[in-house]
């Protein structure tokens, strides 16, 4: 039975590099997906591109490609990477230089983009479409229109499939869905078509498998309830899916690598960052996680069977990022005796100072670190003899100046707090780019691609 083996090489901008290289060296995979983009990374990349038209991609792609390409070329592995970010063409041009430097030419790079809808956002609205906020229900973007920093559609695998069919050895994309990095190669290899009903469950299975592995270590022992029994977690292996033409898949990791893959790690990830498990909506299909079953085969091998779903939706998710104030934050730590009482005293001190300075807060939050910072109201503040307690003060304001005053007032506790007040380097004020999650008609998004030949 035909199988296609695909692995995950990165889950975010800053992920560790060694597991990707080790996976490539193992030669166990035919394709590797690399995700570097979070929901609002595009706003940051847009800003980089505004300052320098030759920037706007994830800069890590250059050192990563320098080390990966010699290995992937030798082992016949094709990489699909969204490191193109806001400027996939420039990213491809830079990677082309690397290819030449390493004497790996000729190679073909598929370049996929067109996810940036900001340039024609108002044209779409003029045709009657409203960008309703999926979190708050607000009907349209009028209240934030002049503060929008990015608007990118989560596009699908269409053009990844096209460029692989055109002979691309490597694909660099903009904001495709993380999932499409995996669905693309599977659709290309198995020849499935979106509009043919007989492929609906297979594409949904690919969407499901993409979800399982797209977050790298998160299904192979990272962030896991299995943390105590994960083998040599410092040598963690990133996940690999063996996808079979009957629509079943085995989730595993490179032989000899550390970490753990079992039914629990796969469950953890199936249920991770989703809403309705019967309708996991992706641009390429809708996965139904309520039908599938997991079978533990041997150690670190879990078979996923009975994957089903529905055909792809007519709308794409769009992440609109808009500027929305500033956050100033500070932390001070207090040793016992009376650690909690000292922190409470200091909390009162800063609140009184804020009253005096008249900061106009949108929101102010006080946490007692080690007591209720993570638990919030789920934890009672017990009056017991803590060894140490931290005070965290965070405030959101409309102006930079006020957020800076929050940060600064926290630093004043260094010398005016109770005895033993301890501190480290203060944090910088950060501008807020808020997320306005919405939908856009698929047909309205002008996706585009090209094949760049490196000779």
């Amino acid at each position, binding site marked *: 039975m035909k199988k296609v083996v695909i692995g995950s090489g990165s889950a975010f901008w800053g992920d560790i590099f060694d597991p990707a290289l080790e996976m490539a060296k193992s030669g166990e995979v035919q394709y590797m997906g690399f995700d570097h983009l979070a929901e609002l990374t595009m706003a940051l990349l847009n800003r980089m591109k505004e300052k320098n038209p030759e920037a706007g991609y994830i800069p890590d792609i250059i050192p990563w490609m320098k080390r990966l390409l010699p290995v992937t070329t030798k082992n016949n592995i094709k990489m699909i990477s969204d490191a193109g970010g806001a400027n996939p063409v420039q990213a491809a041009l830079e990677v082309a230089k690397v290819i030449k430097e390493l004497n790996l030419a000729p190679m073909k790079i598929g370049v996929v983009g067109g996810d940036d809808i900001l340039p024609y956002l108002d044209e779409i609205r003029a045709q009657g479409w409203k960008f309703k906020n999926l*979190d*708050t229900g607000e009907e349209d973007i009028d209240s934030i229109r002049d503060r929008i920093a990015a608007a990118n559609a989560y596009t699908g695998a269409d053009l990844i499939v096209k460029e692989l069919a055109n002979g691309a050895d490597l694909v660099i994309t903009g904001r495709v869905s993380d999932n499409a990095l995996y669905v693309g190669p599977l659709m290309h290899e198995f020849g499935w078509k979106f509009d043919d009903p007989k492929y609906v469950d297979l594409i949904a299975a690919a969407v499901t498998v993409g979800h399982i592995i797209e977050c790298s270590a998160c299904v192979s022992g990272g962030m896991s*309830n299995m943390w105590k029994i994960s083998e040599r977690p410092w040598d963690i292996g990133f996940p690999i899916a063996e996808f079979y033409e009957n629509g079943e898949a085995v989730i595993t990791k490179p032989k000899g690598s550390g970490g753990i893959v079992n039914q629990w790690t796969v469950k953890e990830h199936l*249920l991770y*960052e989703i809403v309705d498990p019967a309708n996991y909506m992706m641009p390429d299909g809708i996965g139904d996680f309520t039908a599938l079953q997991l079978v533990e085969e041997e*150690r670190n091998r879990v078979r996923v069977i009975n994957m089903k779903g529905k055909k792809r939706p007519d709308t794409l998710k769009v992440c609109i990022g808009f500027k929305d104030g500033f956050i100033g934050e500070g932390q001070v730590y207090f040793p016992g005796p009376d650690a909690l009482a000292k922190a409470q005293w200091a909390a009162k001190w800063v609140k009184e100072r804020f009253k005096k300075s008249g900061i106009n807060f949108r929101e102010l939050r006080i946490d007692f*670190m080690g007591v209720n910072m993570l*638990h919030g109201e789920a934890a009672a503040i017990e009056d017991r003899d803590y060894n140490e307690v931290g005070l965290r003060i965070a405030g959101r304001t409309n102006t930079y100046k006020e957020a800076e005053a929050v940060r600064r007032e926290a630093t004043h506790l260094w010398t005016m707090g109770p005895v033993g007040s301890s501190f480290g380097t203060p944090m910088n004020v950060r501008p807020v780019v*808020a997320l306005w999650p919405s939908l856009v008609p698929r047909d309205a998004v002008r996706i585009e691609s090209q094949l760049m030949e490196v000779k």
Partner: protein
Amino acid sequence: MKKVKLGELAFARSGDKGDVSNIGLMAKTKNIYDYLQKVITPEKVKEYFGSEVKGAVEIYPVPHLDSLEIILRQSLGGGATCTLRFDQTGKSRGPVLLGMEVQVTEEMLEEAHAADEAIRKKYAVS
């Protein structure tokens, strides 16, 4: 019946989607799943987390995985980049939920402990 923390009976992991925080609650056995479906209600979860959960709580069953998907709407202070929470993406919500107290029979608690032991035996490196 005995009062125990939910963590005796289930595993949990959580994350974010905009201002939604989601918790995958994985029962350690099928029996426990059937039981948790009855006792873990949206009202209880909302009360447990308190005023940080401004929107609705929804619970979706995932029967073949013996799991519940728990959705907390408008609960991350506007989303990861806006929130004043230290835990911007709600990663702690799952483990925090495991601190909730539930009533359980002695038999079910033994079943949960046996499941823990079976996992440990099967996967632990000797």
